[in-house]
Structure formats: C-alpha cells, structure tokens
C-alpha cells in the first residue's frame, strides 16, 4: 500500500509541476481506487457510484493547490472523497443508505475496481451550459489539448483570461454538480 502511495504521490507532484502525462497516470489510477472505495460505501446506491467518482476526481483537480507536501497524499484524497460522499448523502437525505462511510481508517488504496459503470449525469451536457469565456478555453485546452497560447489565438482571449476561464469553468462545473452554490 505504501508503494502505491509513493507512486501516486510522485505522479501527483509531477502533475502539480505541470506534467500532463504523470498527472494523467495519477488520475487514472486514483479513479480505480476511488471506484472501489465508493462502491463499498454506496452498496445501496450503486447507480450513484460512477457519478461520485467523477465528482470526486473533479474536486481533487479543482482543489489540488490545497495539498500540503508534508502530508500523506492518501489522507488528503481520502478527506476529499469522504467530504463528497457525505455531501451526496446529505443531498439525498438518505442517511439510511449510509453504509458506514464515516470510518476514519484510511483504506482508500485497499481496493481497485476498473469496471466503470456509465455515469448517469453527463458532464459534457453540463459543460455546454457554461458561459463562452469558460466553455471555449475548456473545449480548446482540455478537450482538444491545445496550449494556453494556441487557445488564446483560437478564442481571441488573452492568455491569462484563458487560464482563468479554465479554472473558473471547472469550479462552476463542480457547483452545478452539487446543485447550486
């Protein structure tokens, strides 16, 4: 498990430094662990698992600047996953569906589950509802893989507006997912 922590942390830190390949590997491996972790805790709500995996991945991405390099990465990710899980259960007011999600033991890396079910909520549809100055930078940079400079040329926005647009757009997406501010 500590080998996994070390590998994940290394990929994540390289991702924070701007290495897309390492960051992709981190998110990919994390999604497998998150799926197993959340499926165990949502055994009565199996349809929610994939949506919550996606919501948690988006939160990990949006909050990646809050990671303190002195802390274990697993503890940080676990706190995010748990927060999003509790948030979902509150939204549903389905406390009876709670399958002991409030445990403190950090077994996030204990399981893996590569069988992604279909998400019920389509993030692509939510993305389409963002205003242009957020949607266009995300389309060009995040979906077509253009650089900041190329996106700025394609959209006519300044480079800083492109970066701000991506950042705010992904935050707005997280707010839409949890149903308003």
């Amino acid at each position, binding site marked *: 498990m500590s080998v996994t922590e070390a590998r994940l942390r290394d990929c994540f830190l390289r991702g924070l430094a701007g290495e897309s390949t390492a960051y*992709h590997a981190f998110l*990919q491996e994390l999604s497998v662990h998150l799926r197993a972790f959340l499926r165990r805790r949502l055994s009565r709500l199996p349809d929610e698992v994939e949506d919550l995996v996606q919501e948690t*991945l988006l939160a990990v991405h949006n909050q990646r600047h809050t990671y*303190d390099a002195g802390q274990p990465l697993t503890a940080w990710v676990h706190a995010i996953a748990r927060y999003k899980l509790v948030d979902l259960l509150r939204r549903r007011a389905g406390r009876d569906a709670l399958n002991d999600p409030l445990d403190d033991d950090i077994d996030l890396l204990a399981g893996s589950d590569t069988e992604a079910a279909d998400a019920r909520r389509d993030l692509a549809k939510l993305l389409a509802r963002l205003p242009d100055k957020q949607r266009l930078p995300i389309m060009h940079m995040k979906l077509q893989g253009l650089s900041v400079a190329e996106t700025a040329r394609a959209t006519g926005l300044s480079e800083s507006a492109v970066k701000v647009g991506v950042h705010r757009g992904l935050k707005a997406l997280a707010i839409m997912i949890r149903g308003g501010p």
Partner: protein
Amino acid sequence: MKTDELVAMLASSVEAVPLHSSERRHAIALACGLPVALALMVVFIGVRPDITEAVALPMFWMKLAFPAVLLAGGAFAAIRLSRPGGRMGVTAVALAAPVLAIWLLAAVTLAGAAPAEYGLLIFGQTWAACPFMIALLAVPLFVALIWAMQGLAPTRPALAGAVAGLVAGAGGALVYAPHCPEMAAPFLGAWYVLGMAIPAIAGALLGPRMLRW
C-alpha cells in the same frame, strides 16, 4: 462523459500549480483585514488620549500580547483547517494557552484585591461597549478570512468558520486595545474573551453555509 474521458480532459494541458496556497491566502487576508480594522479604530474611536503614558505600563503590552498570541495560533490553525483532512493538532494548545493564562492572571489579581474592588476590576468603565467594539472591528478580517477559505477546501466547515471568527476577533481585540482605557486582567478575561467569542460563534454558524465546495 465517461470517467476515462473526464480523466483525459482534466489531465490535458495541465498548468503548473504553486504550493502553499493556504499559507499565501491567509497571509493576504491578514495583510488586508488588519490595516482596515486599524484604520476604522483610528478614524472612528481613536487611540486613547494618554497613550504616551500607557506605553510605559507592562499591562498595556500584556493587553496587546494576549490577542496577538491568539491571532498567531489561530492563523496557523486556520491554515491547517483549510486543507482537506486538516486538523488543529498542536495549534489547539496555542489557542487555549493565552486564554487560560489571562484567566489565571485574573484569578491572581482578584485574589489579591479587596472584595470592594472586584466590581471595578471586572467591569471597569467600559464593559458594555468593549465586546461589541471588538466584534465590530473583527468584521474586516472575518470577511478577508472567509474569502481566503472559500478559495481552499475545509472539510470541517463549522470548525474552520469558528477559527476564522476567533482569529478575526483576536485581530479586532488587538486593534481595539490601543483605544481601550482598561488595564485589569479580570476585565480582559471577561470582555475581551467575550468580544472574540462573538465572531467565533458567528463563524461556526456561517461556516457550513459559506465554506461549501
């Protein structure tokens, strides 16, 4: 959108992110909130007229040190609580110690005083205004700290809000002290603590609503 597609989208053209964002945002909040509170104190209520004599008294500096220590300890607690999974840890001691110290000093003062002096030592001349002035002067820093936390990710929003309120209250007490004519430890232990508790309670109530992410 499939999860693999989301992963590819989030990882594509990812920008480098600076570390220590919690420290940075809280430092900005303190640097913006405290000068505004100080300016409000100077403009609206003013420094005490006998300030030049007061600075010679140890109790004047004690009155500044008490909220200053709380402010520092609280700021570190706020930095920790703004990160997912963050706990107060040793910073809880830094919050409790100055309050316990001032209560101890108040008890010693009262023990050495005649019962007829208790009223003056506890209530002074300004007890009715003090907590509200401290709470009012806490507002700029409170707003700044909530802004700081909204850009971060506290997973215990009520506790994070309470600590933000406590830090703001300590900041309010710090800038109120040069105006305040009171010099007795029992007064500080009662009314300064109450003045700082008001924004802390407000923060605990507002935190779960304002710090969602």
